């Protein structure tokens, strides 16, 4: 069986990163935007794990970093969802286009 190379994994993670960025810029629903950001963070996780396994297997720095990123992403999502719920209470919508009172 053919071995998967580092380049292929990096291609996947970079694609995932830009899919997340694209989603953040095009979607107008706050929950979907949050999911896009999670996608970006997860692509970073793939990067770290791949670098650790292929290039520096003797140390575990990358794996630990991944664990911390997952934890922080959870905390970020918790605060973000709390803010979105509060936004829904005042605006009756979770569409970013409805929350544009302040401009320039």
């Amino acid at each position, binding site marked *: 069986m053919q071995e998967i190379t580092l380049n292929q994994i990096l291609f996947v993670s970079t694609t995932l990163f830009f899919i997340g960025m694209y989603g953040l810029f095009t979607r107008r629903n706050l929950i979907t935007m949050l999911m896009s950001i999670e996608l970006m*963070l997860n692509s*970073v996780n793939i*990067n*770290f794990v791949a670098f650790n396994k292929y290039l520096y297997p003797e140390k575990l720095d990358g794996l630990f970093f991944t664990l911390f990123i997952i934890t*922080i992403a959870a905390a*970020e999502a918790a*605060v*973000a969802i709390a*803010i979105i719920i509060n936004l829904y209470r*005042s605006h009756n919508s979770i569409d970013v286009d409805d929350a544009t009172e302040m401009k320039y």
Partner: protein
Amino acid sequence: MLNNIFLLLRQELTLSVLIFLLLFIKLGRERSNSSILNFVNSALLINLTIGLVLSAKGELFSGMFSTNTLMILEKNILNLAVLIISMQSYVWLKNHNQVIEFYLLILTSLLGMFFLISSGNLLIFYLGLEMSTIPLAAAANFDLLKRKSSEAAMKLILSSAFSSGILLMGISFLYGTSGTLTFSILTAHIGNNPLQIFAFILLVSGFAFKISAVPFHLWTADVYEGAPIAVTAFLSVISKAAVLFTFVSILYKVFQPIASTWYLILMILAVVTILIGNLFAIRQDNFKRFLAFSSIAQVGFILIGISGSSIAGSASLIYFILIYVFSNLAAFGVVSVVSALTGKENIADFKGFYKTNPLLSWVLTIALFSLAGVPPTAGFFGKLFLMMSGAAKGNYGIITFAALNMVISFYYYLRVVKAIFMEENETPIEKLSIPILSKIAMYICVAGILVTGLASVVYDYIYSLSFGL
């Protein structure tokens, strides 16, 4: 070893103890707001003095956490700023239902900044950065019922999560090319490798988001306008200061080998930031938005100072931040008192302000003079040192450009002063009775503005501690 931990980590430990105390007070029986506020303010004063008394230098946790006299000084500046903000927001918090939660959020954020400043490893750096931004997003939503407040918090959390995603991508490439996360080892692996330059650009974008340099500034004005004034002051002074301190130490220490690359990036960022910040500040009516754009322009001047990449570069940055703390907080203090007592936040409301409130008018005027950089105030010396540090590289065109932009900035700062002293108003803000704590905070700020500029001891002390390329 244990002694060492208590000595080196004492500022962080004091803050953690304070946070836990506040949690227990929250769980206990109900107390009046004024007693809680008095307790917190005296605790913050103790916190500040503990940082001042001893100086120590060393590393902990195999280089993850490092501290020295300069970092202790930076943390003291942040502590002082938090104390001033806490004293200023007395009027606002006295009638608020969730006083303790407010302090829990901003003190947790401050703790994150302490770890950010002391970080010796990309992991601690990332954790500190997130610990300092996530509570702030919750704090921006502190006026739960206001529509603008929740909009501001939404914008803050989305843009900061996005920027930390970009920053993390940069960190992962740095790890991939060097195999280490420790700053001191990382320096040896940095070179003109294209992937590392790319990683560096991602990292700088993340930083630029946090310090709101143009073109990453779009969240700033909206968040500043929507958030409660105390949180706005915290965002514009403290969080920016902490990130700038870290930015300069990472640039000078870790990315030393590619100094010519980041010099170019800093120059472009500085020019655009000063220009856009100034042009947008001219057209603002809301005081908080006005201060937001003025703070964007100030970041541009700071970037010019940093680009000097000598000892004077980091010294002038820290000196300017110290002055910026005093002048910006004096302005925010006046606006927060007026806003808490009357609800008015527009520049037009300040017409004829001098006739009814001479003291507040003078404080605001001195603060604006210092922000603009008029000679007797400290702001002039701060900007002078930043420019001199930038000019050491010989790029006089950009220095001239920045100096011309200082002239533009006079227009919008002095427009406010003109409104206060010279313009007539049929319904001026009535005479306000200011609580004693807010008054003390304003006196501290004014004294700071006048003394730090004239006493050369301050700059000499900072210079003696600073580091260059």
